[in-house]
C-alpha cells in the first residue's frame, strides 16, 4: 500500500519540516497516530479494565501520561486522546475498538491534527507570546487546550524544554508561521 499511496505532511510536503530559530527547534511530527477515546455511559468498570489490559494510561484532568505502546492526555470529561507509534499503529482506532468493544467510543484523529514539537532552552518568553497559559508554573506532563493566534491547539508540556502542540491540520501552515515569527521576535 505504502508504494501506491504517498502521504503529504500537514505542512504540505513529502517529509516532516524541521527548523532551528536561535535556541528553539520546531519539528513537525508525522510519526504519531492519534485517536479519541471516550467512555460510554455506565461503562466505568469495563472501560478501566480494557485500558489496563491494553497498557493504556488514563491520566487525570489536564495531564499527559507516557506509556507503551500507548500514551494519552485528557481532553474533556471522560475523553482522552491516545497517542501511539504511527508505524505500528496506523489504524490505532481500529486497534483500540477491538480492545474496548462497547465500553468506549473511539474515533480516528491522526490526520485531524498537525503535531509540532517545540524544543529548546528558555521556551517561557516564546510561549508567553503565544498562549495565556502560565506555563512556567505547570508541572511536566501538563496538557491543555489553548488558543494560539486564533487557533485552538492542544498543548502538552513534557519538560521545561519540550512542548508538543496539536493544531488543526488545515491551519498547519498558519500555526507554523506564527511559531516562526514569534520565535524570531524573542531571540
Amino acid at each position, binding site marked *: 500500500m505504502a508504494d501506491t499511496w504517498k502521504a503529504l505532511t500537514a505542512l504540505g510536503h513529502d517529509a516532516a519540516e524541521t527548523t532551528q530559530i536561535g535556541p528553539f527547534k520546531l519539528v513537525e511530527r508525522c510519526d504519531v497516530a492519534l485517536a479519541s477515546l471516550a467512555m460510554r455511559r455506565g461503562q466505568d468498570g469495563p472501560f478501566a479494565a480494557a485500558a489496563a489490559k491494553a497498557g493504556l494510561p488514563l491520566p487525570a*484532568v*489536564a495531564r499527559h501520561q507516557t506509556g507503551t505502546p500507548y500514551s494519552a492526555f485528557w481532553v*474533556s*470529561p471522560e475523553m482522552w486522546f491516545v497517542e501511539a507509534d504511527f508505524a505500528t499503529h496506523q489504524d490505532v482506532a481500529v486497534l483500540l475498538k477491538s480492545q474496548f468493544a462497547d465500553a468506549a467510543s473511539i474515533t480516528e484523529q491522526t490526520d485531524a491534527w498537525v503535531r509540532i514539537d517545540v524544543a529548546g532552552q528558555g521556551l517561557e518568553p516564546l510561549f508567553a507570546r503565544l498562549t495565556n497559559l502560565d506555563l512556567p508554573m505547570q508541572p511536566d506532563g501538563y496538557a491543555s487546550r489553548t*488558543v494560539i493566534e486564533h487557533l485552538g491547539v492542544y498543548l502538552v508540556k513534557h519538560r521545561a524544554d519540550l512542548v508538543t502542540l496539536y493544531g488543526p491540520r488545515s491551519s498547519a501552515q498558519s500555526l507554523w508561521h506564527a511559531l516562526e515569527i514569534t520565535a524570531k521576535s524573542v531571540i
Partner: protein
Amino acid sequence: MIINHPLLGPRDAQEFVYLGDASLINRPDGMVAGIEIFHDYLYNRDNPAGLHRELWYHEQGDRSWLVVTRNTVTHEITKVELARDVARAEGRSK
C-alpha cells in the same frame, strides 16, 4: 474576565462562548408543552441586575458547558458548576 472552571481552575473567559440564562436548561417537553410555554421558555428573561446564573461553553478548552453565577453589575463570579451536573440535579435525564 476569569472563570474558575470546576475541573481546570481559572481560565480566561475569552476561551468560552456565552449562551445566556441557565434557565434554558429547563426545556419543556415538546410532546407535552405547547407554543405558549415554549414561547415563555425561549424568549422571556429575568435579566437581573445582580446575581445571574448563565451558560458558558468552554469551546477553546475541555468543551464543558458551565453554569456560572455572576453578578451582572460588578461581574464578580461567585459559583461555577458543570452544566451536566446542574441539569441532572434539576431532574433532566434523557
